[in-house]
């Protein structure tokens, strides 16, 4: 069985940064991803990132992705694409499958950076062609250059809904309206304002009731909801659209952490069940770390810092890095995260993340 010092699972922003940081400190690193290309969601992000210079703000996600792939290659990370991790067994043995062949890989340290999956929303007509997740719409538009529809309704006003809503407009799609079941807009107001400036109607306390059409979506029915989230009869409105885009949150992809026997906590602010972890991103299973959305849904910018912290901790535990140097590096990564969280949204995320902390 092949042996490596550090296996990183998931080559999104968290995994790429973890792999680079680990290799920089002399670890033999294997980075594994089930997709045929690395970068996770970064290559779908044609917008400029937030934060300050240290967070690579002002750079588009897709360019950050290219930079990280470059660094990964230079750092000498072994990258295994089109490779699914289907098992995590005792003594950190990973079971992989690539091109139909199953192999095993033994790792001294593992960083789980599997990311998240989009939540679905069930309503009459939700299986009609034309109903899709915001991530799918992004993949079609930004990666494959295919227009997913002509007239759309967006469901959900978190940052994903707002940003992808704007990207729909950029792709030449008419965004008829955006509905949000909560009484307030969920994402940053700067993104919401952009939509408003482009003439998009935003209805809060409103949700989708039904998608109609024979072969595909021809219209969508919205309805107001009261303070108990119950639909208010008589408030239904039908909108002529051919696309219903769902941006109703993400859930951490925690299967591998479950297989590893990690402890969990349920935190709805972070997307559901999240593995407990300490300041070094180490889970309740020694030598197994988490980084990125699997450690609680947040932004790519913090995912990258978490990846670095986890890799530093792994390198330190394998004696590649002095305690002082490791502490200083982890501290500065942590500081960049704290700065990023320094807003009302970030403070909420930070508070939730802190409640996950396991005492050392």
């Amino acid at each position, binding site marked *: 069985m092949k042996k490596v010092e550090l296996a990183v699972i998931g080559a999104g922003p968290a995994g790429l940064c973890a792999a680079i940081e680990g290799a920089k400190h002399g670890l033999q690193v294997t980075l594994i991803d089930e997709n045929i290309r690395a970068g996770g969601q970064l290559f779908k992000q044609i917008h400029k990132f937030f934060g300050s210079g240290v967070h690579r703000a002002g750079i588009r996600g897709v360019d950050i992705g290219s930079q990280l792939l470059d660094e990964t290659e230079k750092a000498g990370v072994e990258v295994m694409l089109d490779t699914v991790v289907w*098992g995590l*067994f*005792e003594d950190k*043995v990973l*079971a992989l499958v690539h091109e*139909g062949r*199953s192999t*095993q890989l033994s790792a001294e340290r593992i960083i789980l950076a599997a990311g998240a999956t989009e939540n679905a929303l069930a309503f009459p007509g939700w299986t009609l062609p034309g109903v899709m997740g915001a991530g799918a719409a992004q993949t079609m538009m930004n990666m494959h250059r295919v227009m997913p529809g002509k007239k759309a309704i967006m469901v959900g006003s978190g940052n994903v809904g707002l940003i992808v809503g704007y990207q729909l407009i950029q792709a030449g799609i008419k965004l008829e309206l955006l509905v949000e079941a909560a009484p307030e807009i969920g994402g940053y107001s700067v993104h919401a304002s952009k939509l408003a400036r482009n003439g998009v109607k935003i209805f809060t306390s409103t949700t989708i009731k039904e998608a109609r059409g024979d072969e595909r979506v021809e219209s969508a029915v919205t309805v107001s909801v009261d303070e108990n989230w119950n639909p208010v009869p008589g408030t239904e409105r039908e909108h002529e659209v051919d696309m219903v885009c769902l941006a109703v949150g993400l859930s951490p992809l925690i299967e591998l952490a479950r297989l590893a026997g990690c402890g969990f906590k349920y935190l709805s602010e972070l997307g559901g069940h999240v593995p407990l972890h300490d300041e070094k991103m180490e889970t309740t299973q020694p030598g197994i770390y988490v980084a990125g959305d699997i450690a609680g849904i947040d932004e790519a910018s913090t995912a990258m810092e978490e990846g670095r912290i986890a890799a530093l901790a792994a390198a330190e535990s394998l004696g590649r890095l002095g305690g002082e140097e490791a502490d200083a590096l982890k501290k500065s990564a942590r500081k960049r995260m704290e700065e990023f969280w320094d807003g009302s949204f970030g403070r909420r995320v930070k508070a939730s993340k802190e409640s996950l902390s396991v005492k050392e």
Partner: protein
Amino acid sequence: MEKSSDRIVIAGGGIIGCAIAYYLGLKGVKSTVIERRDVGCEASSAAAGGLWPQAESSRPGMFMDLCLAGNAMFEELSRQLELDIEFRPSGLLHVVEDEQYREEAEKLMEWQLDSGLKVDWLDASETLKLEPSLSEDVMGSLYFPDDNHLNPLSLTRAFAVGAKKLGAEISTGTSVTGIKTVSGRVSSLVTDRGEIGADIIINAAGCWAGQVGAMVDMEVPVEPVRGQIILSEPLPPLFKRCIVTRDVYIIQKPRGNVVVGSTREFVGYDKSVTPEAIHLLHRGAVKAIPRLKSVSFIRAWAGLRPYTPDEIPIMGASDGPEGFLLATGHFRNGILLSAITGKLMSELITDGKASIPLEGYRLSRFLRGAEVERK
């Protein structure tokens, strides 16, 4: 044996405990089942659900007869129970892949025919005609038309639901912590949630029967044997009969998922799955049914079967305190023997005598000096 006022407590809410409560209920007798976690959450729900008295037997005798009697109950039971237990009168093909194995198969067929059982030798073309998805390398097969399968989770639940309807109480999330006796008789079962007065206590704790036995200073030689199983995604109908090879057994369940089992490992109470076993089972399944090579296996799990040194269950009265009975150690036959065990134990309790003698299943056969007969 039983007086109408007797309080009957069953330690263990697996398929055996629930079946006993159900059959007691049918006789109008109420009982209380004490279950540490949840109904059927150990070996009962880890099983594949094969009902194979013939294919899995190695010789005629008392135990074979018990298995056959147990198997014969399911057709009626599937109509009698309120829940669908997915009983399928499917038959079983014991696939023979080499000459040496063929000799063993012929011997098996010979004594089973002598015992008046239905079994047929099919050559390669007959076998493939019956199950065209089998590998063309097959030499032939033994066909057992009366070996079937069902859903063990549904059956356990059906016994539990049926028992409750007939007045049984099932107390889940309750651990047995001790047993009290008064002048040589059981008087109560102590749990982490209180004490329950008992005139009869049945140790139906499966792999944990040893721990319950120890509470009355009784040595019950049951130990866990791990069995790992893998399950495929739902597939269109590939084969109808249960398939048994030298390496694995394979069943396609009514929803289309293919179950492949199983290993036999003495590893204590460890229920983890291992990559080696998953590969072994997968290889065995693909060898028998090549089409399975290109399908996804979506789950792997392990269960602990209550093994006894002679692989025969321990049932009936004990030589311990009066009122302390046993129904455990069913090893790989817990699902097959669930109904007959429930029936016989209920007869023993209410009539003082079971319609099939249970003497051969007594714990005392393991006492020092007793000659242990292997299965």
